[in-house]
């Protein structure tokens, strides 16, 4: 380019100055400019002022208010997702006749205060947060605590946690000062990402996919930005660079899973109560045992006196260096030769322990072996452990076999004096028992020889040895076995010369064989086993990684292995700058909390508009921006831009109160209009299906969960229980068995009839009657559900066992209450399902069908059939 003259340069400079805004970028786009609160064009309800001004300009006459019954049903569906009861409908009609404004306002207040409001509006939020109860992908592991996030959302909506705090806690609750459990549960938003745990998976790839998912979910949910389009290259349409994608990525790149134990308050309280009761009972035992100690000493003296002359200790422990169980149990060997078995859960019929031990040092010959079944009596608050694993600590050894393995590897068996001798103990199992097995003939030591011992249990039922020790002796005849070696050694010391340790060894042994003490101790052990377990409920949250932080860089063409430029956390330049909060002594690299605050900065052009649009969409079926997930240049422009900006600024002005904004919107005339079309001709519209300008309300099918909830509510089966673990309504096996993880334990009782919100969201087996009605897939943030129609929906409503059960319940109830009056029954069905009475033509049609159904001779079935017909009507699942 040639250098322009001075004069021309000056002119250019002026022009550049004049058009600075436009020239600053090619990206001037309404949604990237902070909303400025417009003046409402007229007095009255501001929403109506904006909408009516536009309608007037177009010469369109809006429809009048819907009739009270439709209005009440609409309010119920929109605010709580349930139906008004016939009583509520009647009361509302009466109040409405007296004072429509007050009746309406009261109904709104009542519904906003209902706990079901949080269920309804929480579910909207769960669509955005891609909530599910399982990992997705191959294993599709259940997420045992995901539901605590779901309950947090419902609760936060119910207590109207201001939208800014509601959002900040989800994005960065863990980084708030002194974060509460609830604030950490809120970060479960990030944990809703799919997780690939397939064996052999590229773990770093799987992790980066989760980070990318988190970036996209935040961008869609709060900004309605299609930031995902900049993952592999600069955004094709919006001013978002690939590098900026990875700057946002950097905010989430050091986020780790955190699943700490965080008991519910009531759970902790119960534990403390139970623990106190258990402790006081334990103290009673201790006091009884203490009393018994006094008489015990005397009995021990008598026992010692009766012992008479003691044999010499003559057993040498065999210390195996190899121990195997045929049942793949874990076996461990201690230095004194004791072998402990940690059994696997399954108990095969035959369990064989095979032990290998070097020839015991110091023994020239072996004449026999001793097997000690090592029980341990309880001590203090440590419960005793029986020697066997069977019932009451029993064991049953079928036989013991011995082999000698010579140094050349050849083996020969050492026959026992009494082959195949079995040994079982089922009493006093918490003390040590012993049995001696004599060899058929004495065997002499050989250089490098080893002993192989085989212990077989063939009784089944887990009657195997838990802890045992083998010893050998050269003495003949074989020494007696009543006393363990350590006790024998202690006893052989003269009483006055015994050490503390020796005294306690003897006393402990005596306690284990004293019948009175053992009985008491056993009872105490049983109590000890009932110690209440500490609360173990966890939360599914995130925590910022502090050590070994990961650096972030551009993934060239979206491939994490192709490292591009390093990036630091930051936001797209087209939006307002992010100012990190001041922090002492730390580097000021912005973190997630700064990002969360940035979303609610006065200068943020998107957050408030996006949220207001979401709320509007849930009250009109469509947003003012028809693409709630895309406010970029390729998204739909707002139909009422000034109204959107007014709502966005109003949302901020009312302290981000969701309930306040909803109350404001539903109180407008625009919300309350009729949705029926016939009046369209009078309105003079070229196309009566076009409601862009909101001359009427929209009419649309309810969401998947609501389809279920309406059935349950109308039938009276609905459980109104709030929160808690997800439920699994019945499903046929061929539906649940397509995935790798096939468990679908059916819920029982009331849980079968919980709201759709509570159905277990298993990503590989989505609940079919929800999917049929366009429940979102939970893979990515869903800002707008499809509203399809299909014959599968008809089949579901006609034949799904859950829906049929609802029709049956209603039909059965009516058969009792209106046995002889079909018209009254029909009226009741209409009131229960549609919150209105039938028109004569409708009553005739249903009466005629009912009469045909009654030809089956089953009067109840006729009413079941009538209820089923109404529950299949378009109107039943439509919000008008």
């Amino acid at each position, binding site marked *: 380019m040639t250098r322009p003259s001075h004069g021309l340069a000056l002119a250019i400079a002026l022009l550049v100055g004049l058009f600075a805004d436009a020239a600053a970028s090619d990206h001037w786009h309404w949604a990237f400019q902070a909303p400025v609160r417009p003046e409402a064009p007229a007095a009255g309800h501001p929403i109506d002022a904006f909408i009516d001004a536009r309608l007037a300009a177009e010469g369109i006459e809006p429809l009048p208010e819907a009739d009270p019954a439709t209005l009440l049903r609409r309010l119920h569906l929109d605010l709580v997702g349930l139906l008004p009861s016939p009583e509520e409908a009647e009361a509302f009609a009466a109040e409405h006749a007296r004072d429509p404004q007050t009746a309406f306002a009261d109904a709104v207040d009542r519904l906003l205060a209902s706990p079901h409001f949080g269920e309804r509006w929480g579910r909207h939020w769960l669509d955005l947060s891609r909530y599910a109860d399982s990992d997705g992908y191959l294993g599709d592991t259940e997420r045992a605590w995901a539901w605590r996030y779901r309950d947090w959302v419902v609760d936060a909506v119910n207590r109207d946690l201001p939208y800014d705090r509601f959002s900040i806690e989800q994005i960065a609750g863990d980084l708030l000062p002194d974060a509460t459990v609830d604030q950490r549960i809120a970060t479960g938003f990030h944990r809703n990402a799919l997780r690939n745990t397939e064996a052999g998976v590229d773990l770093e790839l799987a992790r980066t996919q989760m980070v990318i998912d988190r970036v996209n979910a935040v961008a869609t949910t709060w900004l309605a930005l299609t930031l995902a389009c900049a993952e592999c290259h600069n955004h094709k349409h919006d001013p978002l660079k690939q590098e900026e994608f990875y700057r946002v990525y950097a905010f989430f790149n050091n986020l780790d899973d955190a699943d700490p134990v965080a008991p519910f308050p009531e759970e902790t309280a119960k534990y403390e109560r139970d623990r106190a009761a258990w402790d006081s009972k334990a103290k009673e035992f201790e006091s009884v045992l203490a009393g018994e100690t006094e008489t015990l000493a005397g009995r021990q003296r008598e026992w010692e006196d009766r012992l008479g002359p003691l044999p010499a200790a003559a057993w040498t422990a065999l210390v195996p260096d190899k121990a195997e169980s045929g049942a793949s149990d874990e076996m461990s060997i201690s230095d004194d030769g004791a072998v402990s078995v940690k059994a696997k859960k399954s108990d095969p019929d035959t369990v064989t322990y095979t032990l290998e031990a070097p020839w015991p040092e110091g023994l020239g010959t072996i004449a026999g072996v001793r097997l000690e079944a090592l029980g341990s009596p309880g001590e203090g608050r440590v419960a005793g452990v029986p020697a066997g694993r069977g019932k009451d600590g029993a064991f049953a050894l079928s036989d013991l076999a011995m082999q000698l393995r010579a140094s050349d590897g050849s083996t020969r068996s050492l026959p026992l004096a009494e082959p195949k001798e079995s040994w079982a103990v089922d009493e006093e199992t918490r003390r040590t028992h012993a049995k001696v097995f004599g060899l058929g003939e004495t065997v002499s030591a050989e250089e490098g020889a080893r002993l192989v011992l085989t212990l077989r249990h063939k009784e089944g039922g887990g009657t195997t040895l838990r802890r045992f020790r083998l010893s050998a002796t050269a003495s003949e005849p074989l020494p007696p076995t009543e006393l363990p070696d350590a006790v024998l050694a202690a006893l052989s010391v003269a009483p006055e010369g015994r050490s503390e340790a020796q005294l306690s060894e003897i006393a402990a042994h005596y306690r284990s064989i004293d019948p009175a003490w053992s009985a008491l101790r056993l009872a105490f052990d049983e109590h000890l086993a009932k110690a209440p377990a500490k609360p173990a409920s966890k939360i599914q949250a995130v925590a910022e990684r502090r050590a070994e932080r990961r650096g972030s860089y551009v993934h060239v063409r979206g491939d994490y292995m192709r490292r591009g430029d390093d990036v630091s956390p930051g936001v797209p330049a087209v939006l307002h700058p992010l100012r990190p909060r001041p922090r002492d002594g730390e580097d000021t690299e912005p973190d997630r909390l700064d990002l969360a605050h940035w979303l609610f900065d006065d200068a943020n052009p998107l957050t408030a508009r996006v949220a207001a649009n979401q709320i509007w969409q849930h009250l009109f079926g469509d947003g003012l921006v028809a693409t709630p997930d895309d406010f970029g240049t390729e998204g739909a422009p707002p139909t009422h831009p000034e109204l959107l900006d007014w709502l966005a600024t109003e949302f901020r002005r009312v302290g981000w109160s969701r309930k306040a904004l909803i109350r404001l919107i539903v109180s407008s005339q625009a919300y309350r209009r009729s949705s029926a079309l016939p009046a369209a001709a009078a309105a003079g519209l070229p196309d009566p299906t076009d409601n862009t300008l909101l001359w009427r309300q929209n009419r649309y099918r309810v969401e998947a969960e609501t389809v279920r909830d309406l059935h349950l509510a109308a039938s009276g089966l609905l459980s109104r229980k709030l929160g808690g673990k997800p439920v699994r309504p019945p499903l046929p096996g061929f539906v649940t068995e397509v995935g790798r993880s096939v468990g679908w334990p059916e819920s029982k009782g009331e849980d079968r009839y919980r709201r759709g919100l509570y159905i277990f969201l298993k990503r590989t087996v989505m609940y079919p009657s929800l999917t049929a009605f366009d429940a979102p897939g939970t893979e990515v943030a869903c800002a707008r559900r499809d509203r399809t*129609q299909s014959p599968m929906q008809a089949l579901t409503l006609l034949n799904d066992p859950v829906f049929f059960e609802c029709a049956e319940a209603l039909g059965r109830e009516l058969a009792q209450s209106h046995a002889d009056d079909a018209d009254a029954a029909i009226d009741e069905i209409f009131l229960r399902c549609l919150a209105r009475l039938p028109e004569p033509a409708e009553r005739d049609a249903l009466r005629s069908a009912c009469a045909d159904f009654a030809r089956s001779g089953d009067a109840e079935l006729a009413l079941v059939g009538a209820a*089923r017909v109404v529950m299949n009507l378009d109107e039943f699942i439509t919000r008008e």
Partner: protein
Amino acid sequence: MNAAPFSPPPLARSRRDFLASSAGGLGALALASLLRDDGLLAAPSGFRAPHFAPKAKNCIYFFMEGGPSQMDLFDPKPKLNELDGQPLPPSVLEKAQFAFIKKEEARLMGSPRTFRKYGQCGMDLSDLLPHLSTCVDDIALVRSMHCDQFNHLPGQLLMLTGSPLRGWPTLGSWLNYGLGSESRDLPGYVVLTTLGRGLPGGAASWSSGFLPSNYGGSLFRSQGSPVLNLETPDRIPSGMQRRSVEAINDLNRIRQQRTGHDEIDARIRHYELAYRMQTAAPELIDLSGESAATLEAYGVERSERDSSDKNGFQSAFARNCLLARRLVERGTRFVTLFLSTWDQHSNLDSALATNTRISDQPVAALLKDLKERGLLDETLVVWGGEFGRTPLGENRPGFKTVTGRDHHPHSFSLWMAGGGIKGGQILGSTDEVGWGVAEDPVHVHDLHATILHLFGFDHESLTYRFQGRDFRLTDVHGHVVEKLLA
């Protein structure tokens, strides 16, 4: 400042668009043809007209879950047999990545199978495929497939949807979205499964992803009640079901008059269609009208004769193959048959014998049956897994002996027949040990581009807007493999 910050709001969706969006799709697509019949839908703008004349109308896709071993079935490697027990050349080994194999000790493993040339085209196939070997002049065998996913689910999702991530529509969904269904009373996209260990993706394997949910596949059972909720509740006599649907539609019509909303008309049609499906679907799975020769050819009763087939997979898979033909005859656009599992990390020889015993005969019978009935020309048949298996033996820790092969995305085989495919050819080749592709590489995206081409679509133009982006089956990749086209 810009003079017009907001473009004028579009005066919303036309009635026709509305109908198309509410009525478009899967089983609902059948509705569309119904609406056409009834003159309700003059021009079905819900469906994308093909970009050029299609060769294929329907597709039967055999998804062999787990990764069948190409060098034991389709791709003989004499050199590999020669080098049995040797390590991989270091140049290859260095870059190699495995799911489970311990790299340093990995050794090449030859194949015990014998290969012979069959047909006029002289295609060599393994002795495990005696039936398929009689159909080789109709099939195009691609020995140069490759992908970039090591693990089952990402690999399967890539093959099924063009993306290794969950949430994308499957091929069957795209085709129904593009073409609609020709069936008046059956869904346009049906899934039949013969499950060993279950599918890693579960229902994601036939999901409509971000397309509207009515483009998703319908899981059919081959026996009992074929579709979920197809059976009228026990308590309802059959006449009462008919009368109920009449009453529902009578009352819906009254409401339609009151409110004037078209979607009530659509719902009325859906109830009619649902009622018809209740008859049509049981008729579909009722094989009593099939000749004894046909049943014998497919091997529908093999399990009863083979006591080793404890799960009855031989008969179940044969039934599914026969149902696939019956579905296509009745206008179903896309049928996927899953057979899992082909994931032989160990016991490759015996498991391959079992799998081919299940699948070889009925697959070949289906090809011949389609041909005899003149359906093969318009029905594309595809047979393949998500990836292949390594020429190396699998020496995973814990495996005492090497009896299997690991996952192998770098080269694998797949075949296609009918629907505009040039049969009797082998496309592409692998290197001498079967590690990488030597000639004519075909990526999964290329396969998808080719399949869409056969159905008359330019894969770059069949798009759906989701979250601000026009998505397509082939993402940003894919080239039509011209050599495969007849």
